[in-house]
């Protein structure tokens, strides 16, 4: 067993919430809003369906093969060659995806907050901190996630100070162009919600996950949906449809917070706490990538490859992404199909094959 730590269900919820929303709150509102416009507040609700489905698939697989990660059970389900191929796809997916997460993070900070500092400083520092957490194991990630997520969530309450400036009229007319644009907008959310497949790597290390795992997974999905709904609602009612012209509408909304004309510049505090959320996200992705890679190559310890992998991820964060426009184009046209097919459809096939095998072995 590569990982000896054990965490509780509540810690798992604390890990998973920032893992989905840390980059989600940045990019989704502008992309989903471009399709759904006035109706963008509905998109997280419809988009979360994939999240619930993914949690169910992951939990069912976990029930069939407890104490195993997808890298291990895919070999039992698909055979040696098929399992290795599946694992390779998953591990490469997470390595590449972590690179993109880091790129989104450093692009946001250099583009908005610290404009003179080179982006590599942010990529290297977040990777270094996360790599230290990952070397400590899942327990260290879980404990730091409890603190970081709490701070991250508390500062997000600052949006409530905007209540007096909201213009509910921006939500009208309802469903002006029918359901199709809303469905397209929620398809963007599906990419983020399908990241619940990460639970497959965390469930084996959770106490009583076979009993309570499904409930806490579903609860996490619900929390993520509510938070995204909260953010979308504020973006839409504050900025209106013009929010879709910005890369980071949430940041503009936060900048508008003003209390008694005296307390301003809340965005600095919120960005600082968002960095904490992003730290959890990068740690989880790095953890899954290194654990997956170690299990794929049958290594005795995953800790040794964490730092080399971080260096590779640093380079992956630049590979093939010349600028933020290419990144947004990728997130609009490629990412929903890519994420849903790798993280929801592939595991669904895995589950169906596993169930069929179990049925056959029960008959015999």
């Amino acid at each position: 067993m590569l990982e000896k730590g054990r965490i509780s269900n509540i810690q798992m919820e604390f890990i998973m919430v920032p893992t989905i929303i840390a980059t989600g709150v940045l990019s989704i509102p502008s992309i989903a809003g471009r399709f759904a416009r006035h109706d963008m507040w509905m998109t997280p609700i419809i988009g979360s369906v994939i999240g619930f489905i993914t949690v169910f698939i992951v939990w069912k697989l976990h029930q069939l093969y407890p104490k195993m990660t997808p890298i291990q059970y895919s070999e039992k389900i698909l055979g040696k060659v098929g399992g290795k191929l599946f694992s390779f796809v998953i591990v490469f997916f997470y390595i590449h995806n972590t690179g993109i997460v880091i790129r989104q993070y450093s692009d946001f900070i250099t583009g908005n907050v610290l404009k003179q500092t080179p982006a590599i400083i942010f990529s290297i520092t977040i990777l270094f901190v996360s790599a230290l957490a990952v070397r400590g194991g899942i327990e260290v990630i879980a404990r730091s996630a409890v603190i970081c997520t709490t701070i991250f969530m508390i500062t997000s309450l600052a949006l409530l100070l905007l209540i007096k400036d909201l213009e509910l009229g921006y939500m009208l007319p309802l469903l002006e162009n029918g359901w199709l644009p809303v469905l397209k907008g929620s398809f963007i959310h599906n990419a983020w919600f399908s990241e619940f497949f990460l639970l497959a790597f965390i469930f084996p290390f959770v106490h009583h996950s076979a009993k309570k795992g499904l409930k806490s997974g579903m609860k996490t999905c619900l929390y993520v949906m509510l938070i995204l709904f909260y953010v979308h609602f504020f973006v839409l009612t504050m900025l209106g449809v013009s929010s879709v012209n910005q890369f980071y509408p949430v940041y503009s909304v936060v900048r508008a917070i003003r209390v008694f004309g005296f307390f301003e510049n809340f965005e600095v505090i919120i960005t600082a706490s968002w960095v904490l959320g992003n730290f959890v996200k990068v740690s989880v992705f790095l953890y899954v990538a290194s654990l997956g890679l170690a299990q794929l190559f049958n290594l005795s310890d995953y800790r040794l490859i964490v730092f080399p992998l971080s260096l590779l991820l640093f380079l992956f964060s630049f590979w093939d992404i010349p600028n933020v426009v290419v990144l947004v184009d990728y997130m609009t046209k490629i990412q929903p199909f890519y994420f849903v097919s790798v993280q929801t459809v592939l595991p669904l096939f895995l589950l169906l094959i596993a169930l069929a095998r179990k049925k056959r072995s029960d008959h015999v």
Partner: protein
Amino acid sequence: MIGEWSIILLVQVLIWMIVLFEWKNLKKASKANKITFASILILSMILSFAKLEYLPGPITLLHYIFGPWGWFME
């Protein structure tokens, strides 16, 4: 930015720092661990020499695979 000499130098420095940092664990590690460790670092070194931002990579490949479905999202 990537591909300039400073980045190549930075990656070299980081590689040596990682090797020094892990030296104790590396001596105890099995052969498979050592090979994976070295190959990831060598791969990073090779990548650092290229003008990475313009090097066709995973996203170009994904455009080939999922591009035909992209029209749904227009």
